[in-house]
Every structure is written in C-alpha cells, then in structure tokens.
C-alpha cells in the first residue's frame, strides 16, 4: 500500500488531539544526555517538571544500560554472556534474569524466520569479521567446519534461569537484539522515575519514543535512506523503530564481506537495502529489522502482516522503496514506493 500525505496528515491530527492531554507542559525544557555503551552512543532526551529530575532519571537509565552491557557483552571476558559461552556446553548453567530473558525473547524470531534470525551465528560472523578487517575471505572448508556450531535449536532453555548448549562449540551473540533489549529496560527505568515523555536512542539504529514532546503528536524520526532522497520517517509514540543494513562494500578491494551473516548459507547477506521496522517495543524492532534484512521483502512482508502493530520499509541505494504494515505508518516524502504482501 502507498502511504499518501492525506493519510499521514489525518493520523497526525488525530494523534495531536490525543497527545495534547498527556504531553508535558509546553514550557518544559528537554534534557538531553548521551553515553557510550555497547559499542555505540546512547542518547536519552527526557522532559520532566524540572531539568534536575529529568537528569537524575536519565542517569539511572544509563546505569541500567551500562549494567546490561556487563551482562550481554561478548567482547568483555568477564560478562555474564562470556561466562555462559565458556561453560554451558552440555551443562545447564544458571544465568542472571536479564540474560535468560534476552535469550528467551530472541528464540521466537528464530522460529518465525525459519532460522534466518539466529543468535548462535557468532562463529560464522567471527570468520567474516576477520575478512572485514582485511584478512582473507574464509574458505568453504572453514565455513563448513563451524557450521555445526550454529543453530538456535541447540539452545535448551531450562526455566526459570537455566541455559544449556547442545553443541560443543555453540556461542551466543546478542548483537542483533541486545541494544533493543537495553532500550526497553532503560524505558522501564524512566517510567519508574515518573518520566512520561522521552526518547531513548541506541546509536540511531534502535529508538523508542515514550509519549511525545510538548505540542507534538510523537517523536519525529528520520529513517536511514541509502539513496538520500526518499525522506522516510516515522512518528514514535510509545513504540520503537530499528534499522538494519549490511556493511558497505569495500571501495578499494572489491571483497564481499559484511557483518550480517546468513546462518544457513554461512555467507554475508547480499542485501544493499536498509530495512527499518516499527514495532511495539525496541526488542521486537531490533530483532525484526535483522530478520527482515535476512529474509528479504517478500517473506518479510508476510512476517510483518502476521505481527501486530508492526510496519517495515526497505529502501535501496537507488531509491526504490517497499513497505509493509499491519497497522502503523511509515511516511515518505516521495511516492516512489510500492507495497508487498501483508500491507493493509
């Protein structure tokens, strides 16, 4: 379906009327802080009745993000995830609740995508990371050797806190869902501190808009557009958007590499478009954006149709756009778009 400006305007007007009651006072000043964590910069903007109160709430939200980095990092050898990756092979390991929950929340996306989204893809990704840093492209033999290490069905969840790996070399990497999970937890902290209007942004790739800024229907977010001409955007109001895109190809070396690897072929996904997904929470948006990049627009449109309150847009470097939605809207400055299965 094409989203036209009239539809956008109508929704925006309705949103404005609804939002007027819940918005912070027009005189409130936003407090904006940022912090480096999880290999990216987190921004939080919050409105409150005083800047001091907003600032204190943001500090607490950042503390939560830093704490989760210590839980979910696979770069830090002392993190809970690193410990799990060292010790859970054919052995049930009890983990902290956040790690259990993040792993558990990732598994439905693996099932939904038929294994395209998979938090066990790490051993394959590591081979390609070496190629991305200028090392040799992994051989078919190297890829075949690590392929048995990969597969979400080899993770056994043992409630309430146990995780077991049913492969001797399985490793979990929460890179495709961890930032979204951290954004959602930061939003919970802000809510608990009495904040009703805030934007939590993990490096521009996963963003949650709580409430709306004063006088606005929502938080305006411009989406990643590799063509730089479509002007795609969303207005966030108690929902999230996430964007995934394969690493840009080398200009000088012409090698095919990339940080997003298809767990089934073992090869970097050959997709040049950027995919943005609008969903009810940041965890879902983060996981779905990677999933939709991997499965492509056709299957992705069907997934969107089956998932409530979700929308997606694929934008190619040439400016071709494909949208799909089960409710919310993504708007475009131009009309060079067409829909795929699952649009309403």
């Amino acid at each position, binding site marked *: 379906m094409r989203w036209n400006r009239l539809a956008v305007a109508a929704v925006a007007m309705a949103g404005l009327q609804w939002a007027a009651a819940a918005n912070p006072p027009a005189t409130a*000043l936003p407090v*904006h802080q*940022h912090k*480096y964590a999880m290999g990216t910069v987190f921004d939080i903007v919050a409105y409150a009745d005083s800047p001091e109160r907003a600032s204190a709430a943001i500090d607490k939200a950042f503390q939560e993000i830093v704490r989760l980095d210590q839980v979910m990092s696979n770069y830090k050898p002392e993190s809970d995830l690193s410990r799990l990756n060292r010790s859970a092979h054919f052995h049930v390991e009890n983990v902290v609740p956040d790690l259990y929950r993040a792993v558990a929340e990732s598994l439905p996306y693996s099932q939904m995508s038929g294994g395209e989204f998979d938090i066990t893809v790490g051993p394959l990704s590591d081979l390609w990371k070496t190629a991305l840093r200028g090392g040799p492209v992994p051989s078919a033999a190297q890829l075949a050797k690590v392929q048995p290490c990969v597969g979400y069905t080899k993770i056994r969840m043992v409630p309430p806190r146990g995780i077991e790996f049913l492969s001797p070399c399985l490793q979990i990497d929460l890179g495709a869902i961890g930032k979204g999970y951290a954004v959602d937890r930061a939003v919970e902290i802000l809510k608990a501190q009495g904040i009703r209007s805030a934007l939590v942004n993990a490096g*521009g790739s996963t963003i949650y808009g709580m409430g709306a800024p004063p006088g606005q229907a929502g938080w305006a977010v*411009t989406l*990643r557009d590799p063509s730089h001409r479509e002007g795609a955007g969303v207005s966030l109001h108690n929902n999230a958007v996430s964007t995934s895109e394969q*690493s840009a190809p080398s*200009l000088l070396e012409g090698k095919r590499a990339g940080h997003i690897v298809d767990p089934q072929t073992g090869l970097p996904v050959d997709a040049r478009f950027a995919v943005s997904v609008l969903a009810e929470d940041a965890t879902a948006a983060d996981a779905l954006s990677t999933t939709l990049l991997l499965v492509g627009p056709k299957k992705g449109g069907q997934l969107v149709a089956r998932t409530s309150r979700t929308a997606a847009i694929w934008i190619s470097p040439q400016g071709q756009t494909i949208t799909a939605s089960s409710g919310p809207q993504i708007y475009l400055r131009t009309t060079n778009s067409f829909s795929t299965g699952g649009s309403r």
Partner: protein
Amino acid sequence: MKMARSTIVLLVAYVLLAVPSWGRVLLYWTRPAVPAREVLGLDNLVITRGPNESAIAKRARQLGYSVYLEVSLPQASGISEAVSAQGVSGIILDPGEATQVQAEAAAAKMRLSHPGIPILVVDRTAKEPQMRGHSIVSSQGVLEASSPTEQPWLDCNLALVRYGRMLHPAQVSLYQFDWELPEPLQQREGPSAADYALAVAEAGAFHAAVILNLREDLQIRLAQGEAGALAFWERVKPYLRFAQKSPAGLQPQAEIGVVADSDYDWFEPANLMARHNIPFRILSPPDLTDGSLHGLNLLVVFAAPNQDAVAAVAKFASRGGTAVLVSAKGMYPWHSARPSRSSDAVADYAVGKGKVIELLKAVDDPDTFASDIRRLMDKSVPLISLWNALTTIAVPYQQSSSGEMVVELVNYAQDPLPVQVQVRGVFSSIRYESPEDGCCRKLKAVPENGSAEFVVPRLTTAGRVYLSARPDEKHQGTN
C-alpha cells in the same frame, strides 16, 4: 658561501621567532577585570580590537600574562601603534573570509613589518570537539532522531591540525571554534567543565594550540573569585597542566601520506582516517617528490598529479609502496600494463614491488574509504592499532633526540575505559600518565607480531604513554 650561511642563520632565526613559545591553550578575554594567572592556570590571553582593548591588555600584563592581539585581515595594516602601546606578545591574524593560504601570505608581510613579534594565523574552521549523540538534532524546536552510523560520530580537529602543519610549518597549528549549544538548556548553562576539558585535552594531544571562548558571566565570576566559578574552572585545570606538560621535541609519526589541494575533497576522508587511528601527514601537491615520501608505506592522492608527481608516485610504488589515486583521470605510465583488477569504480596496477590503485570517482563514503585504507595499512605491521577504542584517538610521536615514542590519547566519550594498544617496535619500558591519575604507571607489554601490545587500564579524557627501548630506572613501578 658566506651569503648562503647567513641566509641559513636568518632562516633559522626566523623559524625560532615564528614558533610560539607559549603553551597550547589561550583564552579570549573581553572583560576589564582579569583574575590572577593561578586562578586560570594558564599564561596566555587573547584580546580583540575594541573599547576595552587597552584596559584589558594593561591589567593582564600587570598580572604577568602574555597578551596576544587578534586582528582581522583588513585591520592588519593599522596595528603598529596598538602593538607598541599594549606591549603584546604576539599577533593573531583572523583570516575571515580569506583562505588560509591568503592569510599566510598576509602574515608573511606582517612579519616583515613587525620583526620579533610572532604573527600567527588562526583557523576558524575548527569544530567543537565532541562525541555526538549522533542521531538527535534540534530542528525548528522539534527534537528529531535520524540515521544510524556505523560507529560513534566524533567531531575531531586532527585533519585540520595536520593541514595547518602543512600550510604553516613554522607555526604550531592554532585554531578556534564556537561552542555548539543547540538545545535551550545548553544555551542557558553554557559549555560544561567537561566540554572545556575535552577541548584542552584534544589540543594537547594534537600538539596544537586552541583559543577558547569563556562566557562573559564566567569571566566576571572568575575575576570576582566567586566560589562556584572557581570550582567549575578547577575541574578544567588538571587538563591544562597535563597539556602543557607534554615533552618538547616530539615529532608526529605517520606512515600514510595524504596529498591534498585546496578544494577540500580530501578533508572528510582525512577526518575519518583520523577517527580510524590512521597516522597520516598531509602533503601539498608540490611536496609530492621522491624525497618527501620517505618513511611512508601508503600514499593517498586527492590532487591531480602533474608529470613530476606521477613519476614520484611510480617510484614510490616500485619500491613496494601502495598509492591510491582518487578521482584518477588521464593516462599514467603504469597503464602500459594490464590492470590486475578493473571495474567501473576501481583499477589496480602492479608497479614494481608495489601497486597503484586508481579510484575512478570521488570518495562518496568517507567512512568506508577510511576503513579500506586501514585494511591496506594492516597488511603490514601498522605503526599503531587500537581495540575497544571507537571513541578514542591516538597520536604517535617520536622524540627526535632519544628515539623514545610517546602516544597521546583522547577519549571523546569521557568515561573511563580500558584501551588495548599495539605500537610497532620493541620497548623495554612503557609508562602511562593521565590528568586524573598522575604520572606514571608502568604498563606490561607482550610482543605481538613486531609490536608491543599493552592495555591502558583506564582512559577517561586524556592520557599519555611513553615507550622507550631503554629500561627506565627513574620510573619503575606505580606512583
């Protein structure tokens, strides 16, 4: 022969006079009341032309400051009286709308009329150093989040400093920027002490000089000795002391040459190369000669090369170097052989022991380009590599007399983090100092592929690592 010697002596004297002896941070001062030097923790104030000019200069000189007078290009011809009346220690020339090259020509003229007084050109195109919350902008009062980027966006002035060094080899690169305060709360409160600390740390690490703006209300409160203002500035002073403490005689190290002309196509790629910790120096097109490329492994040519430059590039490649020609157009001698790889975007030619890569278009993705250059550099043992350091810039220097290496570090995130570093060479003593923890902590290194690998345990805003091939008896252990 006698003539030649005296010319050399004059040239050396000129260079010595032109190189400023002051520290690396200057403050604009606009209020007649001036605090003591101990309060500010620095010795250099900059005044601009205006009604308070004489009063500020007089008071500042009484307090022992060196006073620099900043003038615009049109004001430059009529300043003789002010220079002698106010006893200024130097003149800072603001190019305004003129280019840096035009300003340097004007400065050269002024040096003839004011012998003995340093005449410095300030670059006003600098940016406030910062790690951007890289996706939120204020647009007509509406907060808006935009595109993701691969890594944290750092506004850093290293490319500008390197360009300044190429333009004014006899002058420490001097720059100035305006604080970015897009949000209402920032406008109300002004830059934070951490903002000042980062600006000082950056200039110190790049061995450049920066002129900082202080809000007038802060100037007044500092001069009055108001407790809040003094406490605010006390948080900046450790960084001032640290920046001024950098050893003398250090030469920046580079293994990449960037040939840049005045159309600035090179600027953003060079900016991103700085952010990828690629040690480079900038060469002007006339500098592209065989002799100027000594010590470089890789050459990136943004300026269209003339015949002599093409010959220098070919010789550089034939000895084993890699040359990347950007927006390569025309016929070159290496075209006599078939390219080893060719597409509509790029062509590779084997030349002797090395190669020439022709990028047929301009660089439209500077970050990807810089990543490519980093990968090419990493094929041999690179001079310096960092891990867990997406917000850190490291600049390697070498002490020309002792051969000791010094690596200056700036962390734009300003949150403590461990940084893993590899520096090419064998070192028996590695010491680390920082404004927060003082001098010096001994670091353990492991040899790794021709390099020394070590971890800086806690880099907050600024840090300095001393690497010596000789065992250091003076600084054993931690203190």
